[in-house]
């Protein structure tokens, strides 16, 4: 009954006329920006974040959730039509999506993508509705040591499964933690790492960091490749899948929804991991595995369903534990903090309108994605005909609008530029930037919970293993880390992991 009451409250918030407008606008804006190849969901959301600044917190997060789905779906369009993946998770989409487009079935591919995403997203949201309050109730009973161990474990897991060598990912995580500690210390009021600058005394804001590190660096990276045009776009016929398509994809969609849901709960587990695992699983179950890579619609359905399911279930650790499991949700976490809302176990008690409003808006956003995006795909595709050399200058100007608007600060403009150049250099040297933003977001929580734990235990580090809750979490995380390390070693021994570092994958 509590869940029903909560949902009722949530739908009241989500169905407010302005919030409906916001979620619709968010989905459409997100799709438009997300379909620009190369920017990726993190950069796209970083650029669009400032659009929400003047809104109340629940409206801001509702709109951002819409932008999130829109971006995730938008990245599929160039992947299918142009064989240009918009982000890491849409690389798997190109394997069967583009061959289907070349066979004249681009419409069916886009349609099944939307349909599978809708089903996967809906199942994940139902899971979120049932699971999140239970987890929040459990999480509200845990203390600083458990919170600290959870945050550290989540960060380590994401670092271990990031692209590229682990050592470089760890360096990025520490860099993020250092950046987060710039400013006034919350406990003592002492300025730290400010070098006497008043601007630095207020710390580094998430907006210039995210826009610079993900948005500007990506544009610089793409500029180097001289993206003249997006290439020839496959012809689009009807976007509605046939009855045969629906029949073939029914089981893959159901199976992939569950796979995606559980993988999305793992820190770093969403996006490409859920797509890859689901694709691999479907290939085993498929009656025609030989078609995979040549236009297998069930393979495409599996990967897209899992991707959207994981995108939605990833909200569970964010809303209930205050742990963003990926860089995109780290940005959403930052937006909530800007609005004086702290995601975590207390969110459901202190701000139930936000907690349930977000969940309700996810139901609505999922429907809007299907209802609006499918008929409007023809319009979105026309955007791909605009050469990126005209689009990216506007993206830069819009991004700077947003950066300045965060704090009315020219210093933020300078920071965004600086982080843009830094991010570009780090990408050139094959560093994954995801650990930076995650560590930046989790840094204050990690330090705060660590210091509180030390106060509680009078300086004894044993508190992290003496308390049953934190000991269980430590064991689970230690096993996960060992598994990740072992998998990496096995892969290396089998020669699957090349010594030449692969092309950096957009986050």
């Amino acid at each position, binding site marked *: 009954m509590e869940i029903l009451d909560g949902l009722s409250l949530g739908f009241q918030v989500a169905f407010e006329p302005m919030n409906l407008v916001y979620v619709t606008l968010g989905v459409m804006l997100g799709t438009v920006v997300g379909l620009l190849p190369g920017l990726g969901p993190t950069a796209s959301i970083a650029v669009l974040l400032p659009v929400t600044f003047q809104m109340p917190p629940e409206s801001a997060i509702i709109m951002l959730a819409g932008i999130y789905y829109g971006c995730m779906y938008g990245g599929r369009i160039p992947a299918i039509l142009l064989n240009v993946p918009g982000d890491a998770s849409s690389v798997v989409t190109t394997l069967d999506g583009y061959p289907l487009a070349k066979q004249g079935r681009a419409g069916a591919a886009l349609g099944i993508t939307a349909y599978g995403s809708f089903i996967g997203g809906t199942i994940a949201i139902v899971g979120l509705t049932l699971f999140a309050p239970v987890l929040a109730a459990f999480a509200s009973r845990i203390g600083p040591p458990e919170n600290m161990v959870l945050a550290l474990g989540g960060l380590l897991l994401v670092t271990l499964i990031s692209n590229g060598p682990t050592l470089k990912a760890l360096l990025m995580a520490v860099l993020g933690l250092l950046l987060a500690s710039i400013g006034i210390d919350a406990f003592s009021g002492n300025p730290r790492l400010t070098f006497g600058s008043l601007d630095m005394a207020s710390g580094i804001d998430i907006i210039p960091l995210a826009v610079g590190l993900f948005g500007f660096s990506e544009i610089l990276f793409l500029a*180097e*490749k001289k993206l003249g045009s997006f290439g020839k776009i496959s012809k689009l016929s009807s976007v509605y899948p046939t009855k045969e398509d629906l029949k073939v994809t029914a089981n893959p969609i159901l199976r992939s929804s569950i796979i995606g849901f559980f993988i999305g709960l793992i820190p770093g587990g969403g996006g490409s991991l859920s797509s890859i695992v689901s694709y691999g699983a479907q290939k085993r179950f498929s009656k025609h595995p030989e078609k995979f890579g040549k236009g297998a619609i069930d393979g495409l359905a599996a990967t897209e369903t899992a991707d959207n399911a994981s995108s939605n279930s990833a909200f569970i650790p964010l809303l209930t534990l205050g742990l963003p499991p990926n860089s995109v949700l780290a940005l959403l976490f930052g937006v909530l903090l800007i609005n004086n809302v702290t995601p975590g176990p207390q969110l459901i008690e202190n701000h139930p309108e936000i907690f349930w409003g977000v969940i309700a808006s996810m139901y609505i956003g999922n429907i809007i994605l299907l209802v609006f995006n499918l008929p409007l795909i023809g319009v979105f595709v026309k955007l791909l005909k605009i050469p990126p050399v005209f689009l990216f200058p506007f993206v830069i100007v819009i991004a700077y609008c947003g950066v300045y608007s965060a704090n009315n600060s020219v210093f933020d403009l300078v920071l965004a*530029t600086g982080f843009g150049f830094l991010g570009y250099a780090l990408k050139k040297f094959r560093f994954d930037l995801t650990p930076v933003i995650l560590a930046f977001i989790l840094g204050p929580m990690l330090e705060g919970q660590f210091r509180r734990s030390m106060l509680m235990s009078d300086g004894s580090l044993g508190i992290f293993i003496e308390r049953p809750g934190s000991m269980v979490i430590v064991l689970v995380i230690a096993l996960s880390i060992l598994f990740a390390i072992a998998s990496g070693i096995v892969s290396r021994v089998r020669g699957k992991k090349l010594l030449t570092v692969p092309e950096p994958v957009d986050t």
Partner: protein
Amino acid sequence: MNTHERTQSWRANRGRRAASWLVLRHGDRIIAVFMMAIAVTALIPSLQQPFGSLSEPGPGLWTVALSVVMGALSILLLIFGRDVPILGKTEGRRDLLAYAAAMFVFAPLYSLLGFLPTAAVILFGLVRLIAHARIISSVITAVIGAAAVYLVFAVGLALPLRAF
């Protein structure tokens, strides 16, 4: 295959026409030195903060610990670092410099001129240099584009942008 052969093979498979991939010898080690410099830069002021103790951690404890860990990881990268294949000579270099210059001048121009002239200058420069549009087209795109962005964000969404 050694690193050079792998890179050459990778380059051939990527099918890049005008790009030339370089193997940046000791690429990881170069970054390791840079990270070590960051660690030292963070460590020095952190040591001047009250350290406290484990039972009552001071503001310096966390940043010192992070600086030390970063230094240690940098040393490991220095020891185990590898060569890095990077995109060297490429026909996109001019575009890269144009975008970088646009980003570099945005903040100072905004301080001096406000949003509208800054956005117009940036859009004109990029559209003219990178899209190779005619001067008239570039001017029209820049003026209308800057005005449209201002209308949408400053007027429509009430973002606090200074027009002039």
